[in-house]
């Protein structure tokens, strides 16, 4: 690298010249824009802060803070209905995560490498959940189960959540698979590996950070999902978010603040983890949440 750069000192100079006016522009602080952004951040975090703060309130009020207390957390810990819902949600998330990652990784590999008409059809089908609003998916899944005579239960929620999550896994992983150099796989095969061995021993390990990140993300998304679960769940046991929905519809219960705070903290931690996993592996890339669709 040094050998290549040495003869052309003009290159770093030019980049420096290009960078200078940029810093100059940023130096002129656009106060109005910064104020708008600050206000945006304040309003973005205010609801989360309010739920968190009032979960520690010693009284029932949502507007007056009376004093610190763990009362509502204790109430949650003794609420068997909410606890069984928590267990149900965790089970659903785990199964949906395992199922959708398994199907999604295979689908992503196939979609990128397979150049047949079936491949483009599969690519189209995969996009459908992303452009369908959740309420439509919810209604459709419920009708399917009812039409087939399958009683709604935790199992039907799992099936619906897997269906919806496959697309996310595939979208996230597809760009990673495409970024892999296929020559490495070819090299493995030149050295005597079968194609399957090359995928298992070369491609999958390279994808591991992105696979883990998408698994964590799917777990959090499914755990938090409400609409699809609402349409496909049976009466008992219900997932936690469905319980929360009925609770906040029929008046405020401070226990919900405690549950909500725990859920917010949990999913924020998981999503932050999903964004950071690729860095733990010391590789660039991974979750491409920021580049948009």
């Amino acid at each position, binding site marked *: 690298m040094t050998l290549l750069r040495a003869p052309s000192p003009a290159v770093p100079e030019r980049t420096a010249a290009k960078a200078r006016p940029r810093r100059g522009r940023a130096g002129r602080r656009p106060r109005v824009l910064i104020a708008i952004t600050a206000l945006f951040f304040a309003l973005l975090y205010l609801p989360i802060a309010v739920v968190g703060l009032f979960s520690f309130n010693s009284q029932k009020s949502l507007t007056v803070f009376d004093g610190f207390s763990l009362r509502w957390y204790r109430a949650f810990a003794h609420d068997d209905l909410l606890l069984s819902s928590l267990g149900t949600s965790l089970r659903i998330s785990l199964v949906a995560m395992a199922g959708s990652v398994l199907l999604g990784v295979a689908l992503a590999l196939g979609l990128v490498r397979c150049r047949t008409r079936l491949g483009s059809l599969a690519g189209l089908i995969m996009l459908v959940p992303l452009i369908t609003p959740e309420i439509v998916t919810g209604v459709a899944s419920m009708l399917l189960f009812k039409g087939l005579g399958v009683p709604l239960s935790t199992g039907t929620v799992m099936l619906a959540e897997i269906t919806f999550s496959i697309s996310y896994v595939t979208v996230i992983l597809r760009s990673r698979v495409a970024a892999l150099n296929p020559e490495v796989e070819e090299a493995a095969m030149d050295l005597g590996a079968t194609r399957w061995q090359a995928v298992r021993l070369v491609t999958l390990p390279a994808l591991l950070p992105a696979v883990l990140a998408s698994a964590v993300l799917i777990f959090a998304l499914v755990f938090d999902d*409400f609409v699809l679960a609402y349409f496909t769940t049976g009466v008992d046991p219900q997932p936690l978010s469905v319980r929360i929905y009925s609770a906040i519809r029929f008046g405020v219960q401070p226990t919900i603040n405690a549950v909500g705070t725990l859920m917010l903290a949990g999913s924020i931690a998981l999503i932050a983890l999903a964004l950071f996993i690729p860095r733990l592996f010391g590789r660039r890339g991974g979750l491409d949440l920021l580049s948009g669709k």
Partner: protein
Amino acid sequence: MALPRPFTRGRRDTSGNRMWVWLMLPGTLWMTGFLIASLVLVAVLAVGTTDELGNPRFGFDLAGVRALADPAYTEVMARSLGYALLTCLICLLIAYPVAYTIALHGGRYKHALIAAIVVPFFANYLVRMYGWSVVLSDDGPVLRTLRAVGLADGGTKILNSGLGVVAGLVYGFVVFMIIPLYAALERLDVSLIEAGRDLYGGPVRTFFFVTLPATRQGAAAGLVLVFLPAMGDFVSAQLMGGPDQIMIGNLIQDKFFQGQNWPLGSALTMLLMLVLLIGMLGYLRRTRKDEAEARR
């Protein structure tokens, strides 16, 4: 995506293709079986009926579809469309300055700032909306601040009004506008703005003739990404609005749970899909035209 040519051809690849197809098959079949089949079912039930127990029965009965013309339902449709479009507009007005500030003035904190926006948006939607409804309530911090500075009086309300519903939708989905705009603004060549200034364009003229056109695609993507969920949402209208602010999502939910009129619910769902498809197609045509122009 773009594999170098030699690797997509050759004898070894024809044998390999079969394995890729096998890998693709389970996921594709799963999606076809559950998703595509169920969407077809919704379309079929829109012209079907239900038996006394409420189980779907398939036939050909246009009662559900004909009921859509009922003024009570067209009003809800028009309202949903209005709320969703207003939400798109407000999201654009909020997201643009925020994305602009972070992308062009965020410096080395820009990734952290964008992550600080994205992470809470993926957290529980219900709990966030619930917190937002507390914030906007009559005794909440927003109205109290507005009253303190004299911008609102005792009678001003946000909740139980159209304003409340739109505020909920904006809070719920503004991130879908920020992400594509941020991506577009980050890609934007700053020297273009400088060129605009060098040619004696004022900041405002430069913005409208240089920055905005260059980020048009990001804005269009954001509009679609906000419009899709906003149009189908029913939580915001339920938590932030009153009975006079219901949207098509609430109507669908009602037909499937309380009202037990599944054919009508299915017809409403198909109508919603139709509106969204029209929006999507408009967006796709627009981007294709843009791409064609860029190629020229």
